[in-house]
């Protein structure tokens, strides 16, 4: 019976569409399409629009005309722009070093066993969880030229006799925004590196200890090389975020005093959105791209090298 039945059943051939999907190349294309559409709509299209805007003379309410690289030439001769470039590198460089150092230190501490570890870990994340604008407003109050609680404390402790002009002095204002950025960024480093530390088998450290390696050597020759891939990825994220930072500086100083703390993003906002010079604002924004691109490529190449090793 069974043989008869089989013999009488027609072989169902897959439809043309199904046959195409069996081909991995077509399947990959189909699976990638939604992502490609999303990326195209929300990343490629705005980027393309941004490029076109930066090559035009558009102002608010006026589409302008095509002016080639006139806006970029103007930027080249703009000393506020170069201040913003320098500030962005300085801000990103200094804060990343501190965030890495403090984050790693915190991660090593949190990787130890102690009572209330879970609660401490949760609290560590607080600066990262609170909306940046809210926490930055609190910091702004702490650095307020007149009502600074920091000044008040230092004065009461007898460490200063005159007010420190935190946000009114160019260098101190820069230092102040860096402090806030570090405060906000350390938890991200700490938690990410902690996750990395927990993937390292304790046996490796124990074996090194048995072989007589001191704590510093165990860290440098065992932990650090194994943690390096995670560290590089965390740094990559952090550098991108810090380089394009906006809200923190906008709330704390608005780019002042006298444009001394402008970063790419805040200067682009000042020019494009506040002054209504959309094309020039877009040019400032896009000028960030080559710098960031080079940084990201170098970091990615380094990550690949570390992973291969």
């Amino acid at each position, binding site marked *: 019976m069974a043989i008869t039945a089989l013999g009488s059943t027609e072989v169902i051939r897959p439809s043309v569409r199904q046959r195409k999907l069996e081909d991995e190349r077509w399947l990959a294309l189909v699976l990638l399409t939604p992502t490609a559409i999303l990326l195209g709509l929300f990343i490629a299209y705005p980027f393309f629009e941004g490029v076109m805007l930066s090559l035009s003379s558009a*102002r*608010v*309410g*006026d589409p302008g005309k095509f002016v080639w690289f006139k806006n970029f030439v*103007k930027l080249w001769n*703009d*000393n506020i722009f170069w201040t913003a470039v320098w500030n962005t590198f300085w801000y990103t460089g200094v804060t990343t070093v501190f965030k890495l150092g403090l984050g790693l230190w915190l991660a090593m501490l949190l990787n130890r066993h102690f009572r209330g570890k879970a609660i401490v870990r949760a609290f560590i994340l607080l600066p990262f969880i609170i909306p940046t604008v809210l926490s930055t407003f609190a910091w702004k109050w702490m650095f*307020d*030229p*007149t*009502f600074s609680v920091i000044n008040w404390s230092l004065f009461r402790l007898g460490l200063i006799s005159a*007010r420190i*002009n*935190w*946000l*009114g*002095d*160019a260098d101190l*204002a820069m230092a102040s925004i860096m402090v806030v950025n570090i405060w906000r960024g350390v938890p991200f480093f700490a938690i990410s590196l902690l996750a990395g530390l927990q993937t390292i088998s304790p046996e490796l450290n124990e074996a090194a200890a048995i072989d007589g390696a001191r704590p510093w050597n165990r860290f440098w020759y065992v932990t650090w090389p194994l943690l390096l891939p995670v560290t590089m990825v965390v740094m990559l994220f952090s550098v991108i975020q810090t380089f394009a930072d906006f809200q923190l500086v906008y709330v704390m*100083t*608005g*780019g*002042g*005093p*006298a*444009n*001394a703390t402008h970063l790419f993003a805040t200067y682009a*906002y*000042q*020019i*494009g*959105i*506040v*002054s*209504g*010079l*959309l094309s020039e604002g877009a040019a400032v924004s896009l000028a960030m791209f080559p710098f960031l691109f080079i940084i990201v490529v170098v970091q990615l190449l380094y990550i690949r090298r570390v992973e291969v090793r």
Partner: protein
Amino acid sequence: MANTKRRSVIKLAGSAAAVASTGMAGILATGRTPAYAQQKTVHWLRWVDFVPASDQLLRKELMPQAEKDLGIKINFETVNGNDLQPRATAAIQSGSGPDLIQAFNNNTYIYANSVVDLTDLAEDYGKREGGLYKYCRSLCSNGKMFMSMPWAVIGGMIVYRKSWFDEVGATSFPKTWQEYREVAKKLKAKGRPIGQTLGHTFGDAPTFTYPYLWSWGGKELDTDGKTVVINSKETLESVKFMQGFWKDGCDEGALAWDDTNNNRAFLSQTISATLNGASVYIETLRKPDQYQTEKGTPMNKDLQHAPLPAGPAGQFGMHLMQSDMLMKYSKNQDAAKEFLKWIHTEKNYEKWFISQKGYATPPTAKWEEHKVWSDDPVMAPFKVAAKLGQAPGFAGLPDQKAAEALSKYIITDMYAKAVQGMPAEEAVKWAEGELKKIYVA
């Protein structure tokens, strides 16, 4: 065109009668929404007023009344003054947003392409109320159209502690910058400096730095309206004087202040004088028990207002002009115009004006005689603020380029750079370069 038949007219009339008499059943029967479901909404965006009572009045009394009188819905929104320009830019570029957006000073010129001409309304308003002040006209109209409807001028005067000035021998307010510097030096020595922002903030910074520049004879442009003449002997003198004035008599932390910082500093008695609207004084009137002098007397009895001192070229003022732009993208332009007409009628506007207690000066001459000015002599200097103001871009027009220079804080930054240590010549040269990028490029 389809002919209207007697039968269809009867049907429609019947339907209307059904709606009136049967409510929901009638609506369902006719398949038409009743008129009130098509109510128009006007979205009005303004700053958060420094006199909170005025926002309360608008929100709780005037807007509900307007809704009742006009049959429209008003969406009244307030934001920090520094956020109005970003909101306007975003709304214009996206083609949607508030129907009416408040503009400061000559910012109207930046948005000229995107606003509805309000000449009819503004001219009619001027005619009814004894004429618009020249200052207000120059900031709201480019000569071809009214880009916005003049609302009010927030007079900028120096509010100062009379007893503290008396203590250092200044029984009347200094008449010149030199005298002011000498008094400020004595006040600072007593821990009571002058508080003046040189930060990026819409009100107190430019309304100080522009008139200060003019009073020394400095100006952005020549009378041809094109040639940048900021790099002059007069400007240089003003910058050098500012460096000394700042060090001798000012609170050096004020470089980072916005428009609210000086209010807080004054009310907490850390500064003795500051250029401001009358908001400090009005706040001390509102809370006399909270704001007291070191002797335990109400602070409002110890406050006086005075215009900025005179320089070698005279005495000037620049006051914060407020106006309302009707946006081209608005789908409710007619309703918005009706609303503007309504709010600018004497009866309605007066309620708001009284709530300001003199903080705002109306843009027309009629209000000079109002009892608000005679009720409180401390407020009297604000009466003519709108009459005496001079617009940015002087000696040229307050046009789009002048608005760009203002919104980039070039004049303010020139002084800010100098007091931070940049040589005066370099600061002036920097400002000249920045202005030339706008006017010559």
